């Protein structure tokens, strides 16, 4: 039985294919359309998944849609009319998109894929998240926690999952419904801090490390914790039902002061600590607010997880929903609760809900070995690079560099050279040498990663101990705020030296999903990847998970003594990760990247020698 999972309509459209309990392929639509968080029908992701799985649409037996549009529509209607007569604009806009297409999602899928509607099933949105959380965990049974902005109605939900007679059974235990949403509180304050909601939450998390949680008591009054681990949000401080207005209400602003003016930016830096001391006082208030909402979030998810553990007695926890992207909060889930193992899916947000929907529907009939199945993050498209490599010698560097990013000025390269390696050993040896020579390397290999993390196939790499290069990466390649730290990739063996424990068996440590303290004595050797609080987001790379990237880490160790590299996603500001080698090349020629590695070919920029 083959099930296609589809998610679209809000943000991060995606598709996934599950066959007899095994996930074959999954991809985000934005990798193909180059529109970050694209919410449109995932035409290109479906095509790519079918191609990758070696299937055609005719092979698909059933389709699972990640949410129940009718149920969600009741929530939209209630929210629209709740603020009557002040919500005409919101109502008109919501009705246009809902009556225009969102409500008829099943018909749209049927029409687009030429499949009879009887083969399409809709699922509760948080059930899709829950199934995504459990799929690939290898647990026989587990407690599941979903923390999201808002699904159909639920915002936070808990479940228990187990395999019964070869079928997956997921039982709902508790849910907190809209408008009481911890995720929306976090997003509203993200907006208050000057970032874009649904995108800038990671910036709020990063900014938190520069502040003190001095507003925590106030926020705890507004988002009150209940005895059962759930919570109640005082709605007078937020505009959750007036969804086209600012998330925080006038009352919130009266209490905490005005939001960040849009023209201002934060002077904090992970690289230049002096800048933090010199930061103006009025900006420290925002860092304190970020620290407060972060702490609030941590306390609430710990409390929910503790209640869930007490209720279920389970030792395994699966965590999904956008809240599971908060790697700092995740680090407390094993420390502060009785759970012994934690699994977070590779895309815990809405993008992964297509996986969950397909997996749940597919496993409602006995599916043999699915219970102990797992999957790697490399579920996306694999691309032939030969055509792009062959055109390199026909490119005019002098002409192309006129189009380097304006903020970088005119780049100084004068040409390109290519070198194709016959073996992986040769490739990693050459690239490791370039990394040691302070080069910024674009690394495009094999199948793309599903989800938001670049785990060694669509990555930009630099040496981890040179803050000057990291700063160049931030300002002249990624255009990224200096207060956002980078992740650290390392081999399993090296992780024992770098981190404060042996975490190789815990998957969140292999996928950059959890913050971890770096040993004091190692910090100078990985200084570009450490946040001001002494933590990093580790990617412990195991040889069987990504052999070529693992070999590169080891090759770098031979030169530098440490099997560690700074690893960040291959994308420019405002764009999703590159989906094709051609787009990787576009970014390469327009930015200050020195080297691009497409499969086994190294493309170098050549410079005028002094």
């Amino acid at each position: 039985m083959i099930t296609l999972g589809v998610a679209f309509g809000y943000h991060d459209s995606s598709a996934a294919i599950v066959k007899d309990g095994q996930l074959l392929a999954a991809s985000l639509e934005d990798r193909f359309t180059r529109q970050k968080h694209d919410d449109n029908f995932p035409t290109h992701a479906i095509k790519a998944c079918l191609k990758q799985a070696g299937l055609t649409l005719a092979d698909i037996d059933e389709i699972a849609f990640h949410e129940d549009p009718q149920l969600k529509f009741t929530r939209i209607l209630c929210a629209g009319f709740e603020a009557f007569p002040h919500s005409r604009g919101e109502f008109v806009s919501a009705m246009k998109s809902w009556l225009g297409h969102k409500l008829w999602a099943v018909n749209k899928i049927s029409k687009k894929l030429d499949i009879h509607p009887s083969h399409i099933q809709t699922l509760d949105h948080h059930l899709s998240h829950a199934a995504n959380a459990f799929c690939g965990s290898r647990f026989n049974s587990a407690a599941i926690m979903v923390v999201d902005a808002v699904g159909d109605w639920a915002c936070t939900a808990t479940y228990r999952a187990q395999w019964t007679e070869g079928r997956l059974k997921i039982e709902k235990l508790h849910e907190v419904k809209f408008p009481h949403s911890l995720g929306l509180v976090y997003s509203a304050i993200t907006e208050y801090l000057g970032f874009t909601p649904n995108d800038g939450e990671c910036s709020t998390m990063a900014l938190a490390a520069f502040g003190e949680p001095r507003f925590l008591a106030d926020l705890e009054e507004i988002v009150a914790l209940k005895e059962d681990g759930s919570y109640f949000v005082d709605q007078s401080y937020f505009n959750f039902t007036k969804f086209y207005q600012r998330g925080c209400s006038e009352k919130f602003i009266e209490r905490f002061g005005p939001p960040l003016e849009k023209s201002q930016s934060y002077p904090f830096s992970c690289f230049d600590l002096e800048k933090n001391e010199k930061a103006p006082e009025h900006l420290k208030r925002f860092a304190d607010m970020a620290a407060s909402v972060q702490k609030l979030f941590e306390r609430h998810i710990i409390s929910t997880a503790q209640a869930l553990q007490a209720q279920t007695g389970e030792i395994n926890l699966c965590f999904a929903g956008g809240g599971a992207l908060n790697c700092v909060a995740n680090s407390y889930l094993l420390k502060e609760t009785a759970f012994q193992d934690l699994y977070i899916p590779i895309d815990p947000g809405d993008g992964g809900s297509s996986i969950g929907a397909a997996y749940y529907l597919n496993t409602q009939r006995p599916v043999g070995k699915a219970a102990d199945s797992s999957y790697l993050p490399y579920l996306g498209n694999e691309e032939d690079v030969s055509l792009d490599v062959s055109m390199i010698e026909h490119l005019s560097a002098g002409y192309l560099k006129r189009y380097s990013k304006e903020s970088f000025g005119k780049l100084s390269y004068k040409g390109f050279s290519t070198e194709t390696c016959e073996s992986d050993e040769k490739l990693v040896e050459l690239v490791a040498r370039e990394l040691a020579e302070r080069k910024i390397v674009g690394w495009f290999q094999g199948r793309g990663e599903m989800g938001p993390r670049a785990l060694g196939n669509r990555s930009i790499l630099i040496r981890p101990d040179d803050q000057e290069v990291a700063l160049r990466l931030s300002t002249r390649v990624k255009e990224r705020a200096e207060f956002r730290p980078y992740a650290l990739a390392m081999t399993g063996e090296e992780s024992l030296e770098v981190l404060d424990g042996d975490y190789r068996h815990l998957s969140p440590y292999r996928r950059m999903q959890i913050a971890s303290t770096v040993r004091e004595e190692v910090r100078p050797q990985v200084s570009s990847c450490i946040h001001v609080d002494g933590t990093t987001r580790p990617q412990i790379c195991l040889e069987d998970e990504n052999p070529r990237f693992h070999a590169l880490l080891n090759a770098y160790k031979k030169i530098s003594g440490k099997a560690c590299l700074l690893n960040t996603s291959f994308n420019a500001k405002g764009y999703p990760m590159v989906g094709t080698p051609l787009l990787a090349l576009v970014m390469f020629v327009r930015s200050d990247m020195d080297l691009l590695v497409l499969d086994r070919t190294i493309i170098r920029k050549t410079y005028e020698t002094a």
Partner: protein
Amino acid sequence: MIRMKAIYSTFLDFRNWFFMRFLWGMSEKNYYRTVELFAATEADTVWQLVYGIDKIHDPNFRAQVFTQIVEEDFHAETFYKISRARPEAIYRVPPQEKEFLYSDDDPVWKLLAYCYVGEEEAARQFESIARVTPVPELKKALDKIVEDEAGHVVKAYRLLKGLGATDGQIRWELIKIRFKRRIQTMQRSLKKLFEYLIDGMLSVIYFFFGPLLSLYARKKMEGR
């Protein structure tokens, strides 16, 4: 023919002057919205070319189209930067459903012809806007983009022929494309008109059913 072109150019100037002084003058948001739409159009051209280039296997022609992609990407970014220079006035074009303009069976030169016609028309528009815009940063960007477009037509013609199109085919295709683009412009205007109508209807529904439904909605929300 030359006189016709001059008349058309004057008409464009007048139209752009009217839009900029009148609509942009009414609200700064209109100005940023227009520039954001320019950016989205350029970004769509990039996407179409990235999709279409897969069919080009000759490294030399591929390199030419790649160069075009880099240029268009730069133009899109230039417009984005201008449109987002004043964050409080930001209008963001929602992600568009991306559909390839031609079927997989169509020769790739047709797509390139389409893009070049679009570029040529856009360049003419930009040139006209640059003449009348009161916004210096937009004038500078438009001048640079128009300068980039100069010489493209000759290069494009050479590229299309290199990819197997004959003179007759190119001429006929360009006529079809221009006609198609006029129809698209008309459709967009009609859609906008239709949307105003829908807005009005929905507003009537909102105020008619609102008093009753708001009681139900508030009860449901309070119960949570």
